[in-house]
């Protein structure tokens, strides 16, 4: 017989300021890997708790060993997002009107929805232009992000997908450099801002850096990233599709970000 999948019921306790206080009860009927419940969305794979743990540990170890495996970092993010963290993030989005609109519209970022050609024609200094310049410098397209599969709640799965697809926008927003230290510092910023565990776990990547890079990241970028991540507004609530022609500096001021470090 098919069992029910985790169905969290969110109860928000009062008005939240910095961190929304979330309490949830869940109707969780256990299932086994031999009788998985039907998927909640396309590509969904309901995992049992031991499987989730195995995936978390395995993807953590293997992505440390071979950092090119972006799919493992994605899997790590999904495996460690529940309980609590992804629900907290979704609630943070629900608290803001823009966030609520994003959750209602569920916009996706890929090469069909974002016209690269039109973005390239935007004036320098706009969000869209910085974004497409970043993609071109890295030589990637917005289609390279894998689909979320291991998060049970469809709305939270969308939140994770949105985070993944917006990551490149965060590069444009923070102005952190392309070097690997910039990438790791951005993860620190994301952790301070979104509290997604995978971003925090990515800090272990500093172990792979050369000593000079490590010193630079610890003295210059990390402090900036964490300070700004904490003080800035939730970046998940930015409706990027509407901000493409905004000036980056103006957006930074609105969000509460300082100038990027040199």
């Amino acid at each position, binding site marked *: 017989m098919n069992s029910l999948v985790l169905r969290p019921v969110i109860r928000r306790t009062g008005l939240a300021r910095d961190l929304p206080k979330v309490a949830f009860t869940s109707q969780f009927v256990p299932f086994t890997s031999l009788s998985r419940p039907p998927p909640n969305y396309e590509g969904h794979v309901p995992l049992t708790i031991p499987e989730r743990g195995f995936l978390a540990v395995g993807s953590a170890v293997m992505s440390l060993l071979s950092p090119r495996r972006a799919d493992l970092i994605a*899997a790590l993010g999904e495996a460690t997002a529940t309980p609590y963290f992804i629900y907290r993030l979704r609630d943070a989005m629900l608290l803001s009107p823009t966030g609520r609109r994003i959750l209602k519209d569920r916009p996706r970022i890929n090469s069909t929805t974002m016209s690269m050609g039109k973005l390239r024609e935007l004036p320098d200094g706009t969000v869209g232009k910085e974004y497409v310049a970043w993609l071109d410098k890295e030589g990637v397209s917005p289609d390279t992000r894998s689909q979320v599969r291991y998060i049970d709640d469809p709305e939270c799965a969308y939140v994770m997908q949105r985070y993944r697809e917006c990551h490149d926008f965060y590069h444009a927003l923070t102005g952190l450099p392309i070097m690997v230290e910039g990438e790791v510092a951005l993860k620190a910023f994301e952790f301070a801002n979104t509290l997604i565990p995978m971003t925090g776990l990515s800090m272990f990547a500093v172990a792979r850096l050369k000593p000079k890079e490590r010193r630079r990241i610890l003295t210059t970028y990390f402090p900036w990233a964490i300070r700004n991540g904490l003080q800035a507004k939730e970046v998940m609530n930015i409706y990027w599709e509407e901000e493409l022609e905004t000036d980056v500096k103006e957006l930074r001021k609105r969000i509460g970000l300082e100038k990027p470090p040199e």
Partner: protein
Amino acid sequence: MSARPLSRGLLSAAPSKHLRSVVPRVAASHSTLVGPNSSPSKDDRSSSEPVTHFGFQTVKESLKSTRVAGVFSSVASSYDTMNDVMSFGIHRLWKDHFVRSLNPGRRPGGQPMSILDVAGGTGDIAFRMLDHSEKVNGDRETTVLCTDINADMLREGEKRAIQNGYDSNRISFRVENAETLESIPDNSVDLYTISFGIRNVTRIPMALRAARRVLKPGGVFACLEFSKVSPAPLDAIYQQYSFSIIPLMGQLVAGDRDSYQYLVESIKRFPPQSEFARMIKDAGLVNVGKGYKELTFGIASIWKGVKPLE
């Protein structure tokens, strides 16, 4: 009906290019995954085309071989590692035992053999056959024709043959359909082997009949494939491992959960040992003993059949 050849078993070594473009297709198809206890969808029944299973999905027969080929293009590049990881290296022992028990090669005073390895893609069994013939029977003239549905796997096999210095007149590679074996003449093969491939064939009875056709009278049909584990408590552990660990390892090692989900489903779908032995008999081959020998508690089995002398 599509007669594209069917893919060889997962437990063969050798990766070829990892075709990432295939994975989303497989993933999308798995999005409509229904549980193992569900019946075929109404849509499949309403069309007149016969349906079959693809793992636990139900698909039109004509599409299955394309989907199977797709699965193996995407797994090929991490094959070696995944095989060892999934079976803890035991697949090597199975294959060694399989080849040794067949004892390929010229018998004293006899003729060199012509061996056909179906779904043999990357050459695992083929190379073992050649090594055994040469080292045990002193025979460098026995030939192996290695066929597969998937050209990528064959290309990888060819690469390995060259790398390991196998003579091209001892081993050849060809794309072939296990159900028809079109280019292989009747009564031409001394030994037909299929290792971890037959569970992926759309119409297994057809493949068995094709085997009978190409075998010489007195020729041997040998199949190494996953089978049912007994006793039941051990089977419970095995099922749990299959459906839990293997797709996860597929995600971790190969970056492809769906292909390995398909593979464990196809293992579960394959008929039990005795039933497959009966199918071999129905195809016109004579069972050797009860028809099969189990390996490692029934995780894998070797079936043998002989084409009767006229």
